């Protein structure tokens, strides 16, 4: 669990982060969402002491991070950089194994863990001997994620980890990523400016503006109970899609009149379920049923 209370950071006279308080729970993905320059990266970097705050306290599992040595602290926090930040002189294998090397793991353990992660992140095994410049942007980012995941740290911080991916690949990765068992036992804070990504990945979303937190809540809360016009306007342009994405099948189950085919049951949200159903003509009944159920669910939310 990560707790920020009253944290501020200025660069010169410019208040990059202004008195923010938030909490990221265990087993949760907390998304920091906001336009570019609103202070997301700064907030994230204060958690692993890449940036020292001017004021406020940050606790990880109840311990003030100022009480641990920065190097020691960082070894317990996986960090995915905004632009992958791979070491150009290291192969993929060496890049992934930086932290194991610092922790002096034996090479067999490192190797097994590496190949396990490559598989989970959909990277070919033969990639290990290549250098970063021989990879696509998306591959580089996934190597960066593998590097942050390898040591199974209790905290994971990710700064726009999927920024270099096209929308299609992004959606595919999001699903796999959210279901990674690596994430089930840690606290994850993920930064993004992509509203859809926030809705697809975040258990909770923390919307930031000009260094301050405007609202924190679940995706549905953000949509149906916006704290102010800023929040409302922020989601206005993609509102329809977001509504479908913010509802899980679980949410609409009470209103569902048809049984769903097994391949749809695993869908992460209503949007995904509808997409699966609409691609097959034989499921038009189920499609209508989901639409109806969602309408009823939505009425309740807005009531």
């Amino acid at each position, binding site marked *: 669990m990560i707790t920020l209370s009253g944290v501020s950071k200025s660069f010169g006279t410019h208040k990059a982060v202004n008195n923010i308080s938030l909490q990221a729970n265990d087993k949760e993905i907390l998304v920091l969402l906001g336009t570019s320059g609103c202070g997301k990266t700064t907030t994230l970097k204060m958690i*692993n002491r890449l940036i020292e705050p001017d004021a406020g306290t940050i606790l990880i599992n109840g311990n003030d991070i100022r009480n641990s040595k920065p190097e020691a602290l*960082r070894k317990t926090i996986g960090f995915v*950089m905004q632009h992958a930040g791979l*070491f*150009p002189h290291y192969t993929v294998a060496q890049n992934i194994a930086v*932290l194991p090397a*610092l922790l002096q793991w034996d090479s067999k353990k490192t190797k097994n863990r590496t190949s396990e992660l490559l598989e989970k992140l959909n990277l070919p095994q033969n990639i290990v001997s290549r250098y970063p410049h021989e990879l696509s942007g998306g591959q580089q980012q996934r190597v960066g994620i593998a*590097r942050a995941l390898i040591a199974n740290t209790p905290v994971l911080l990710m700064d726009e980890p999927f920024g270099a991916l096209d929308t299609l690949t992004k959606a595919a990765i999001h699903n796999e990523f959210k279901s990674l068992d690596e994430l089930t036992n840690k606290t994850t804070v993920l930064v993004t400016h992509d509203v859809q990504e926030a809705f697809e990945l975040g258990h909770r979303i923390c919307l930031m503006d000009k260094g301050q937190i405007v609202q924190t809540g679940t995706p549905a809360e953000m949509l149906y109970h916006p704290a102010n016009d800023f929040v409302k306007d922020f989601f206005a342009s993609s509102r329809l899609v977001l509504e479908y994405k913010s509802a899980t099948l679980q949410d609409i189950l009470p209103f569902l009149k048809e049984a769903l085919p097994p391949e749809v049951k695993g869908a992460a949200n209503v949007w995904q379920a509808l997409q699966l159903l609409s691609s097959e003509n034989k499921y038009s009944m189920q499609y209508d049923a989901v639409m109806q159920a969602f309408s009823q669910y939505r009425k309740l939310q807005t009531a």
Partner: protein
Amino acid sequence: MTQEQTLWQFIASQQDKLLAQVGQHLGLTFLSLLLAIAVGIPLGILISRRRRLATPVLGIAGVLQTVPSIALLGFMIPAFGIGATPAIVALLIYALLPIIRNTYTGITGVNPLVTEAATALGMSKSQRLFKVELPLAMPVIIAGIRTAAVINVGVATLASFVAAGGLGEFIFGGISLNNTNMILAGAIPAALLAVVLDMAIGYVQRSGLRSFRKLLYAIIAIAVALAAYFLWPLGTKNKLKIGFTPEFMGRQDGDLGLRQVYGMQLSPVVVSDAIMYKAAQEGKLDVISGYSTDGRIKAFNLVVLQDDKNIFPPYYAAPIVKSETLTKFPGLKEALNLLAGRINDSIMTSLNYKTELLNQTPEHVAKDFLLSAGLYKASKNGTKGTVRIGSKIFGEQYILAEMYRILIEGNTDYKVETKTGLGGTKICFDALMNNGIDLYPEYTGTGLLVLLTPSQKVVNEVSKDSQKTYNYVAAQFKKQYGLEWLNPIGFNNAYALMMRREQAEKLHIVTISDLKAYLNKK
């Protein structure tokens, strides 16, 4: 030494010397380079950490590099004496800038995202330095080492000025002795060394060497090889430390004569005459070669050993000019001859003393003398043409060149341009022959032994007295080169061996034979 020796024959006959010089050259280059790496890389790292220090450190290293090599070597003598040490220190200083600068730019040029990633992964500062920053900066650092290596191969040729050996012995010996083969035997290997070293380091650079540790191993391996080389005796094995100029080493009235006539097999270090006297005064050398009229003999309390077997015949000094130049500038000959017979040995010695010890400028000394001799006339600011006077790179020649300038400008309508400090006999002579200068003061002995190089028989015959030498040299120069020796200035100059007075007295050495007896005594 016959005159028509080919370069190949020269190299074959001198191969031991050449090998030793190549070894010394490499030794100097590498040892200084290693030290520069040992100092430069940490300094470069330091200033990349404390950026405020970058400007002053790079500034100082930059200024040091602009100090002319000879001057830098000169500064080293009081602190480090002569031999390999001052040369290595001077070379180290030259190699420093490219290494510090490239280490600094290499490290500061590493993508900040990458160093931030290293920090975020929990690396400590030193882990980040050795695992990320240095490996990524390595190609740039090696490029700096490469630049430094090539600079050092070049500057190491000057090491012979401070008796540190190297290929400069041949190069500058050849220049003094008018021996093109000797120059080439030094210059070609020096150039080859530079090219090979450049290519070798370039190869390392391209091979993508990243590991700082591997570079370290390579450096240590070279260091060990070198240390082995430097245990090689670099200096003299004599009881006394002996230093001769490169010119003296190759002259009949020099080391050759000492061997043949006195039977002295010395193993002297080769040293530039610019620093030889000072080294003798400070006890860094005990026996040196020199000119009998040098002011520093008096100034530094040195004593000239008596030449009891007459291998150092006295010679006249006189200006030499192309005959056609005298036709082109009517009245020039008369102006130059105004000085003829006016300066005897003791006057010349005292004039030299004024420049060399009292630090008076040659201009000042020349004017004072001409005033007292009643020869001074203010310049007529003539416009009828320019006479270019050359001089070799030692005090006496500067003074003579100045006197001629005043005499020509005061007595003719010509303007004078002086080109002083020409590196040696060959440079002056070639400049004269190729119309780079119109005249310079030369010594009949040098004309005879260095430029004409007649048979031993002729040498023995004509060097019996000064006038005879003058007549022979004047006639031969006219015939062979179309050059005229004007009337002798008056003083006799000769080579001489000299020691500190106090040491010579203590050891009871008065003559060169005494010196030989002392050296041979077990």
